[in-house]
């Protein structure tokens, strides 16, 4: 059993940007039989929210994983805080989903186009 620093960019590249990438990363490092993992973000240039959300669920919120994150940039810290804070937030929006007076229903394409043409949307 080893405790070693893993440069995440060596596995994924400097842009961290899909949920699949997190799952592949997990599979790769799981095969290396480590109990404690230090993941180095020092060379990361970009991370998407989806990536960080999946990363949070697989590596940080998962009790089977013992990870320490090192060299997080301020941007990655913000992204991580954002996904942490929304894990259990359940927006109460059910009443906003149904149709209301502000929605527009068109009965023909010419009617829809006439509306779109007049819309100041550019």
């Amino acid at each position, binding site marked *: 059993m080893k405790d070693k620093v893993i440069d995440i960019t060596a596995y994924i*590249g400097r842009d961290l940007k*899909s949920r*699949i990438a997190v799952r592949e990363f997990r599979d790769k490092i799981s095969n290396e039989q480590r109990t404690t993992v230090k993941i180095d973000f020092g060379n990361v240039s970009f991370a998407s929210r989806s990536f960080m959300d999946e990363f949070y669920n697989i590596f940080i919120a998962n009790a089977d994983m013992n990870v320490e994150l090192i060299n997080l940039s301020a941007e990655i810290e913000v992204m991580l805080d954002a*996904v942490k804070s*929304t894990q259990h937030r359940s927006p109460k929006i059910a009443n906003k989903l149904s149709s209301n007076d502000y929605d527009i229903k068109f009965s023909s394409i010419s009617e829809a186009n006439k509306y779109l043409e007049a819309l100041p949307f550019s």
Partner: protein
Amino acid sequence: MEINVSENIGEKFLQGLEGVLRLIDRINQSEDKEDILIFQNNIFVTPLFILPLLVYVSGSQKKIRYQFTNSYLDTIQFGSGGIKPEELDFPTLHHSLNKYSAKTYIPIIDFPTDQKHTRERNEILLAVENLLSTQIRLQPNITAGLKYLIEESVDNIIEHSDSKRGYVFGQSYPSKKYMDICIADNGITLLGSYRKMEENKITDHLSAMKAANLSVSTKNLPGAENRGYGIRTSRKMLVKGLSGNYVMLSGNVLYLKSKKIEQFMVLPDIATWQGTIVAMRIPYVNASFSYIDFVE
């Protein structure tokens, strides 16, 4: 029926979509089993014309063919349906894209969504982001935002659409300092994604569009987040941060969002897309923009 496609699509953002809607109307007026869309020479089209048309045609019950000798449509790979990264080795792929470095548009990209082709997909998306960035000399702060906007949309296709393919197409307007990006799939629509959730209560395209844009996750995993916040952050980043315009189309519902307008619209049933389309008009000169300010 032969349907002439002769109108030039101008720079007004929704004009491309209006053009597709007119074609759909004519296709539905035809009683023929097969229709041919004949593109006139020198026609100019936009991302919000091309991808909604491709997705509509791919989901149509009728057989619809294209006929054109237009060099622009050839250059953007319209006839082939787009560049497919898994069919090219990486040097050939980069060589193909380098040909566009002096243009103001990228070719249509037709990428696979499966895990097997993750490397090819990442390679071409990175190449596209670099190409767009180089073509109009984007500042790093805008490039980061552009990456975020593209990647979140692509990830939604991979995770939720059940589509085998995804599509990206973009056009820049250097004199106006904005670019249009369209990202699409021919999957199960937003409604289809919600219907796969346990205890789903969303039963129509309008509710699904509202749910996606008001942060209801399609993920059914305990503790797992979500399509909702990714879409919300993208939209906020684009509209508030860059003063851009955001369009989402899924099934027969259209959603528009700008600083001044937020509108959900139900189109007639004949204008139903078997898939989801996101289009963004992205102003790209903004020194104070930082994408991270909009993450929530």
